[in-house]
């Protein structure tokens, strides 16, 4: 049956936000192609999740269920969805672009002779799918050619969860055949890293430092700006990878998600992984020497220039304004 199928993930026992965004994307794609959109939940006990999803405007909801799917493994999820896709022959399979999907969807697609069009931010008539290239500096338009299912994953925040249309969908169960020996990896329970002592999530003012700072010896000029603002200091991933600031100050998909009144990005080019972490910011200011840096696409105000000159000038201007 030709249809669009959305693969839904859970987070703490509920449908995750980005999965709703994927459902929203599926409904929008369905409007474009005139097809039915359905959903799949996958795991060992999927009834509550399926109940949540079945209250939306979907053709049907299928529970791909097996005791060996209790914990996520790439082998288990690939095998289960491979059998499901071979049975249903969907035209499109839409995933949320999560770390879990990145771990198995390319494998699933390859097994079926397909390629995942990953991290999609939009689509248009065709359909063609848009994803970011060169760290967000460019957009690329991709088309699926040949026969077989088209696999797509959608970027966090690219589609709106609150636009998912309500309805009712029938729920059924699909039982894949999986042997224990086919699952070769053994996952443990997830755990947190070092205790989070810096809560950037609730900070109202944040200064973020990126690669443009060039040298750890220059961190103090950003710290002085943060102090003048009464702001917390955060950083993009490379700064923490290099050990210039502690990991607990990392902002982005693998670090903290922030929603301050003011976010001041200093020497941050604006890679996708960083931008998803700052989406909730009320006002974004970018200081960067490169006028084409992607950070300027999301900034309300920008200063193009050498941060070694601009940041101290801004610190002085803020101090003067306070007096």
């Amino acid at each position: 049956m030709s249809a669009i199928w959305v693969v839904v993930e859970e987070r703490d026992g509920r449908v995750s936000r980005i999965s709703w965004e994927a459902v929203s994307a599926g409904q929008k794609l369905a409007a474009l192609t005139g097809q039915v959109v359905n959903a799949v939940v996958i795991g060992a006990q999927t009834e509550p999740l399926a109940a949540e999803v079945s209250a939306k405007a979907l053709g049907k909801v299928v529970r791909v269920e097996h005791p060996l799917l209790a914990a996520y493994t790439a082998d288990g999820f690939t095998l289960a969805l491979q059998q499901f896709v071979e049975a249903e022959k969907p035209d499109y399979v839409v995933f949320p672009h999560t770390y879990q999907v990145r771990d198995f969807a390319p494998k699933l697609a390859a097994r079926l002779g397909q390629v995942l069009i990953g991290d999609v931010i939009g689509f248009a008539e065709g359909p063609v799918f848009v994803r970011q290239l060169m760290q967000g500096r460019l957009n690329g338009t991709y088309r699926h050619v040949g026969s077989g299912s088209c696999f797509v994953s959608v970027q966090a925040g690219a589609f709106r969860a609150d636009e998912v249309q309500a309805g009712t969908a029938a729920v059924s169960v699909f039982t894949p055949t999986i042997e224990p020996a086919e699952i070769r990896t053994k996952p443990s329970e997830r755990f947190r890293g070092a205790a989070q002592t810096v809560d950037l999530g609730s900070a109202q003012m944040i200064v973020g430092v990126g690669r443009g700072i060039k040298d750890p010896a220059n961190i103090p000029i950003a710290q002085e700006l943060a102090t003048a603002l009464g702001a917390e200091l955060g950083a993009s991933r490379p700064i923490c990878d290099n050990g210039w600031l502690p990991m607990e100050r990392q902002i982005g998909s693998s670090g903290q998600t922030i929603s301050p009144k003011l976010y001041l990005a200093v020497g941050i080019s604006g890679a996708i992984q960083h931008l998803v972490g700052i989406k909730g910011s009320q006002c974004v200011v970018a200081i960067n020497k490169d006028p084409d840096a992607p950070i300027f696409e999301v900034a309300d105000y920008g200063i193009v220039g050498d941060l070694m000159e601009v940041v101290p000038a801004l610190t002085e201007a803020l101090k003067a304004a306070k007096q």
Partner: protein
Amino acid sequence: MKIIVAIKQVPERDAQVRINAEAKWIEESGLQYALNESDAYALEEALQLKEKHGGEVVVLTAGPERVGPTIREALAKGADRAIHIDCADLGNRDALGVAKLLAAAIKPENPDLVLTGLQSDDLGLGQTGVILAELLGLPHSSLILHVEKTDSGLTVKRELEEGWFRTIELPLPAVLTIQSGGNKLRYATLMGIKRAKTKEVRTVTAAELAVDSAQVAVLERVALPQKQKSTQILPGNPKEAAAALVEKLKFEARVL
């Protein structure tokens, strides 16, 4: 342990990119290239595993002639030898097509471990390693920050979202995609650079590997992104721009 590290040469991070005349990719002439960042971490992980457990580190890359200096850089850092898949039409192959090339070159080597970076800084697909595992029939794990060899295989630390991690055990041979930041990167020493000149670089052409290059996902067009917001760029020298920004933040955005 015999480790193959698949690396990619990508445009340098600060390079000014221009869209080419056909709007299919970027203008490559005059562009500076470098080793992809997470691939540098994959190489570092391989070198550290070799230092602890012995064995061999082989770097593998596909690309045109210009990848030479990137291969030499990896050899100078300590890789033992290299395989260069000479391929001028990499851009006309999708993720599966590129992985097929790499897999064809890896298979006869029978490695214990294959490492790749998490994703490339140019296309950012983040799929090559995962697809390689499928093509080679090996178990894998992605987004790995730490690798430990055990009696039965490997124990790895996988990064999850929002500061969470998971430990995963897997048997060897296996494929891992390495996240940046897990190790400190080394620099090539003068001795290393000297030695690299005498190390083996075996070139194999894409044609010799005889893999299917038909695309399933085609990059049709490249364009500049549309702005999500209209950014007010504040002009003037640093002092003027800073003063103007404070005014805007106070009286327009009202966040100060």
